């Protein structure tokens, strides 16, 4: 018995098997990211008034990443069109671009993560807060033994709530300067990792899971670009379908980012 509908679509559904399969999988992914977005809404709505952060992420970098993904989406479509038109060279060109753009996205994201891990909130002994990026720790710096000092590029505030809304007009006038704080004045020093605030927790989880999907998608497209492209010579229609199916996954990854970007960066 020949295996039906691998390449040609079934008449009543208009689909070949893998296309239905990927859409079903994408439906489950909608529920996965949907649950995380629901968690975001719940955490934000349930936060104490004024204690939900705004403007903690660099909008320009986020915009650049958005443009990177949108461009990778069009290159993905063009790769599929090239396959459909049996233009193997152009397919290779477009999907090479897709993979490069995917790597660019991950690099930019890594830079953003690194930036957050270099950003510290320091609770001072006098009840005030210092906040900024780490420049250096003195060689003898030890918080437990209260020796040495730490130098950050940031500013000091009286209350923690002043660190939350960085989109307010007054925030534009904040002067960042080099501040050296001796260990004896530090009560607590915490970097802007996922443990620092539930906003960061959901930010790292959502973007981390998204980046994982970007990497997996890039690996699959990379495989089809490389060793998997052998099938082009034996069964081009089936290969084109594989490009379409992997492209659908890629577009979904772009779709998630279309919502992630405004929700996490702009609002």
């Amino acid at each position, binding site marked *: 018995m020949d295996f039906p509908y691998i390449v040609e679509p079934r008449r009543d559904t208009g689909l070949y098997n893998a296309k239905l399969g990927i859409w079903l999988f994408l*439906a489950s992914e909608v529920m996965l990211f949907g649950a995380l977005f629901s968690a975001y809404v719940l955490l934000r709505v349930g936060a104490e008034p004024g204690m939900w952060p705004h403007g903690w992420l660099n909008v320009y970098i986020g915009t650049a990443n958005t443009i990177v993904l949108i461009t990778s989406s069009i290159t993905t479509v063009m790769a599929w069109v090239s396959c459909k038109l049996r233009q193997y060279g152009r397919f290779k060109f477009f999907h090479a671009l897709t993979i490069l753009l995917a790597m660019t996205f991950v690099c930019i994201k890594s830079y953003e993560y690194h930036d957050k891990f270099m950003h510290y909130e320091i609770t001072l002994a006098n009840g005030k807060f210092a906040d900024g990026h780490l420049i250096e720790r003195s060689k003898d710096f030890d918080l437990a033994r209260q020796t040495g000092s730490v130098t950050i590029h940031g500013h000091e505030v009286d209350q923690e709530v002043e660190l939350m809304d960085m989109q307010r007009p007054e925030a534009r006038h904040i002067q960042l300067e080099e501040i050296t704080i001796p260990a004896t004045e530090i009560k607590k020093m915490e970097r802007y990792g996922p443990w620092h605030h539930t906003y960061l927790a959901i930010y790292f989880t959502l973007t981390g899971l998204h980046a994982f999907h970007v990497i997996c998608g890039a690996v699959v497209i990379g495989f089809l670009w490389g060793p998997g492209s052998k099938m082009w010579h034996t069964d081009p229609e089936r290969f084109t379908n594989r490009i379409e199916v992997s492209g659908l996954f890629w577009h979904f990854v772009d779709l998630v980012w279309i*919502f992630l970007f405004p929700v996490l960066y702009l609002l």
Partner: protein
Amino acid sequence: MNNSMTMNGGHSPEEVHSVRGYIFVFIALLAGTILTVWASFIQFGSREINIAVALTIACVKAFLVAGYFMHLISERKMIYLVLGFTALFFAGLMGLTIWSTSPEGMVHIQHVP
């Protein structure tokens, strides 16, 4: 059209050659991105309006990607059914969870002094 030897294998010729359409969608997506960033800097007075504007633009961009890049606009009933139910259950998950944990959905305990 069912012959697997045809070049298009189930896709209409018009679809395949709508490269111009794809470029148009691409430009629209870029414009939407610039628009949403610009709109986020505008102080509308209440945060809710910013949220509504940003989500609306995101939905339009999502429709463009799903409808044109993912060819949803020319798909048949089967996929629409699957995605329709998914959207419904996602709305249920988010809506009912938030309603249940909102102040109006929870019991209020009065502390008697």
